[in-house]
């Protein structure tokens, strides 16, 4: 995937995090790579967006959030049939906790904060996924 392909994509993303700072940081980071980005403050808001008919190619999901945490939201989205790439972005230290988060239905899980290298990897994965579906 060329650098031009990386930026000239038609991909959409949802950033789900209860921290305004991290929502802003990840939103800006993804926008730099050409994605159209929306944000949600917690898992319930994310699930509600999908229930209202929204869809996104990529969801960045924090784990620890009030009302509905990332694992709960991920499980709910998968039960709803959401096939978006869901990526956990967490500062969880415990391997056990990260594994449990993955088992909720994540495609990948990264440690906060997201880096440019992580985003390039995800864009390549999304590109591969699109090619397989087509």
């Amino acid at each position, binding site marked *: 995937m060329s650098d031009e392909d990386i930026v000239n994509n038609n991909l959409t993303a949802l950033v789900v995090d209860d921290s305004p700072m991290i929502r802003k940081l990840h939103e800006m980071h993804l926008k730099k790579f050409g994605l159209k980005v929306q944000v949600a403050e917690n898992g319930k808001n994310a699930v509600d967006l999908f229930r209202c008919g929204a869809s996104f190619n990529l969801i960045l999901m924090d784990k*620890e959030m009030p009302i509905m945490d990332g694992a709960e939201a991920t499980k709910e989205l998968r039960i709803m049939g959401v096939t978006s790439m869901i990526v956990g972005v967490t500062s969880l230290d415990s391997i056990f906790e990260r594994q449990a988060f993955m088992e909720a239905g994540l495609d990948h899980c990264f440690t906060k904060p997201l880096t440019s290298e992580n985003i390039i990897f995800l864009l390549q994965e999304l590109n591969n996924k699109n090619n397989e579906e087509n």
Partner: protein
Amino acid sequence: MARRMLDASNQGLLLQFWLATSSLSKGKTRMDRNRLQHQAASMRRSLFDQGYLDEPFIQLEELQDDASPNFVQEIVTLFYTDSARLIQNIEHALNSRPIDFDKLDDYMHQFKGSSSSIRAKKVTNECTVFREYCSAENAEGCMRSFQQVKQDYAILRRKLEVYLQMVRQAAVSQKA
């Protein structure tokens, strides 16, 4: 008062910086503009070398552009707001009897999340130490570690303010 707040290694930098900016008002030269940029870069290098920030902080700065010219300052300000809230919550939790270590751990987990996102290395590392004391339900260890977290955060904040002021001045001189 601002000068008293800085350690010796930064006072020299700031003095040179003020001299350079005052010379700007008398007549801008390319040399002055370069000097401002060099001093901002030196300040950032010292933040990395002293362990207050991690080098990937540069990736955060690279997100700033003409469409979002104050992005770094906005992120840093949000970090300060998050930090103030969490520090207050932790202090309250440490002063409660009995201490709720689960709640303490939860607050510090949040603090670690936001400090690692802004690449605040020392603060993040000390948050990890604190959480280890929390797991062991070691109240004294938690209190000692929390004092260190607050100290590291206060120093980082002062240094970041100086650095961001330098960056702003260097940016203004570039446009002049």
